[in-house]
């Protein structure tokens, strides 16, 4: 276990608690809670980076084991969220996202070692896993953003003006963030799909039959959903609730791939 893991976990927990406290109280003064939560999250991000760096120095590359990929995914997700907060300070998204990353990081650290896919350290393998993880991390932010959109939109439609409504970010802003995340994440995911396809076909003599796996089918489904969302946004102006639902479906498919690798190990690569 990397040395900074307890500190990282504690900082994530502090940030998560502050974000939740901010989201569940109605006082104006709680803006300070959100600010402190963001600082704690940034500290956790740095601490997490120290862990990843330490493991690299120890010879445990982030892509050599599925659980390291999970930890790397959690770290990238937090990084992506922190990057968005400069333009879109949405504490409610943080309140939902940080618990997810805690689960991912704990699963990575406390779960059994699964081993890594063969030739993961090749250029293609590194590119595929790195880009796919980055893409999924950005989609994770988009998905949590979409979930917040659906909740906020539901409250506005049903005219329920409780405390969560007060904290709910504006719909237009949530939709903008979703669009930008997809615009950024989709090219990464597309390149990851291409490199992954080539990589897998080259492995052990290759062959198209190696693509007939559940994880490849799920990856393709995720790609199709995000591609369709992007096209629909540009071509017909799809936005709002439907865009949020497609985002969640796409992220669900991408998360399915990660889950398959985590549960079955890399044997299916």
């Amino acid at each position: 276990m990397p040395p900074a893991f307890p500190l990282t976990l504690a900082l994530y927990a502090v940030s998560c608690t502050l974000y939740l406290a901010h989201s569940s109280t109605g006082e104006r003064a709680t803006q300070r809670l959100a600010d402190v939560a963001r600082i704690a999250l940034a500290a956790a991000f740095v601490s997490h980076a120290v862990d990843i760096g330490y493991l690299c120095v120890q010879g445990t590359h982030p892509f050599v084991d599925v659980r390291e990929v999970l930890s790397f995914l959690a770290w990238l997700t937090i990084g992506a969220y922190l990057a968005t907060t400069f333009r879109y300070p949405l504490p409610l998204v943080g309140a939902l996202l940080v618990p997810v990353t805690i689960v991912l990081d704990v699963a990575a650290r406390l779960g059994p070692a699964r081993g890594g896919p063969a030739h993961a350290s090749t250029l293609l393998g590194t590119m595929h896993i790195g880009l796919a993880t980055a893409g999924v991390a950005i989609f994770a932010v988009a998905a949590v953003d979409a979930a917040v959109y659906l909740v906020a939109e539901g409250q506005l439609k049903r005219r329920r003006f409780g405390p969560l409504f007060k904290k709910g970010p504006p719909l237009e802003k949530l939709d903008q963030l979703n669009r930008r995340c997809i615009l950024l994440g989709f090219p990464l995911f597309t390149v990851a799909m291409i490199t992954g396809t080539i990589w897998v076909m080259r492995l052990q003599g290759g062959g198209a039959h190696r693509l007939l796996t559940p994880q490849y089918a799920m990856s393709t489904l995720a790609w199709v959903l995000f591609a369709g969302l992007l096209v629909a946004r540009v071509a017909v102006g799809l936005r709002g609730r439907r865009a949020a639902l497609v985002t969640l479906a796409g992220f669900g498919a991408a998360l399915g791939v990660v889950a398959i690798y985590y549960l079955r190990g890399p044997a299916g690569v």
Partner: protein
Amino acid sequence: MSDVLVVTGLSHHTAPVDVRERAAFQEGELEEANRRLAGHASETMILSTCNRVEIYLTLPDPAGAAERGRRAVEKLLAEVRLLDAVVVGPHLYTHTGEDAVRHLFRVASSLDSMVVGEPQILGQVKDAFQHATRAGTIRNTLGRVLQRAFAAAKRVRTETEVARSSSSVASAAVELARHIFGDLTGKEVLVIGAGKMGDLAARHLVSAGAGPLLVTNRTFERAQSLAGRIGGKAHPWESLPQLLTVADIVLCSTGAPEPVVKREMVQRAMKARRGRWLCFIDIAVPRDVEAQVGDVENVYLYDVDALSSMVDDHLAERRREAEIAERIIAEEVQRFLVAERSLGVVPTIRALREQFSSVARAEVARTLGKLEGASQHDRRVIEALAEAIVNKLLHAPLTALKREGESDGLVSATRTLFAIEEPPASGTILPPLPPPGEGRGEGPLETGSGSGSGSGSSLGGTLEAGRAK
């Protein structure tokens, strides 16, 4: 016999919006409706806003006044608004006497409003007063209570933070728009209708950064007039479907009896908008926007009831100020009731003063007749002396009379002692107060305002009347 004040009506507290919109009077109907009621009451005033329809009556006989007032109102609603008593009856409330006075004061002070502290209601009560005045159905009694209600509302506004800390329907609209769009800068606002509420809400949105403003109205001249006032651009009514394709926020406040924005119209507009969000703030009663419009994707529709549930959330923040305001209302009601009681003793005070003065004048004249060499100056000194003696002698009894109001014992004792024979003017005297220690009227009372006109009736008969539902 004293008149009794009765108020019967329905409001956002008791009736859903669909009942309120059916009961609401159009502005042009008010004077005629007041005249129709005049046959049943001494005075009438109809207050009709998007959140309440209330009818204020003064009735000549306190006995069964609540029931008579309620029947008159049900009859009026059936005749003018075609609203059956079976439909409206369960939503009606009736207050009489002191309760009615307190209710009017609270309404005018915006303490009974959907959005406590909202500023529009006082103007609406004043408008109702003017309509009734033009119809000739308002005279001294209702006039007096309304003037005191306006004064109470002014006190509440200046001495508490209720108005400043509260949001109005208009500011609630701004808050909702912000939940959809965030920053309102550059968001186009379409105002449908040229009423006051739309005007106010549009101004709130502009002050929040929204704009440009588009205005449309069935009467183009009124649209132009409103557009000129709020810095917008008027468009003909026929261009409404096109305007919906460009506007982000639509404020509706027409007086149309039927919805003017239909679901199909909005669906067509949303296609042209490529799904951009559209927010309708419908503050009209009857509603201007079909309820089904709210089901269209990316369209958000808020009517006055929706605004109500939102602003309810703000009530806790305003409760402290509202409590102070309630104390002011209690003081003002008490002060008004004291003044009303004082009105009842005015004839006795006048008669007493006149009797003393006439005796003094007669004695001065007789004395001066015996003083042959008295100069003009001497005569004026003697007349002033007599007047001063009368004032000194009457000061204590008049103060006591004013303080005791129309306590029958004191008034009749005074009349007996000083042989004042003529009865008090009809309708000017409050009914007997309960014996000391049992009822109201024992607090600190005004002593300097008893010189008002003795004509007209007081609301005294109302004071013992209770609340009826």
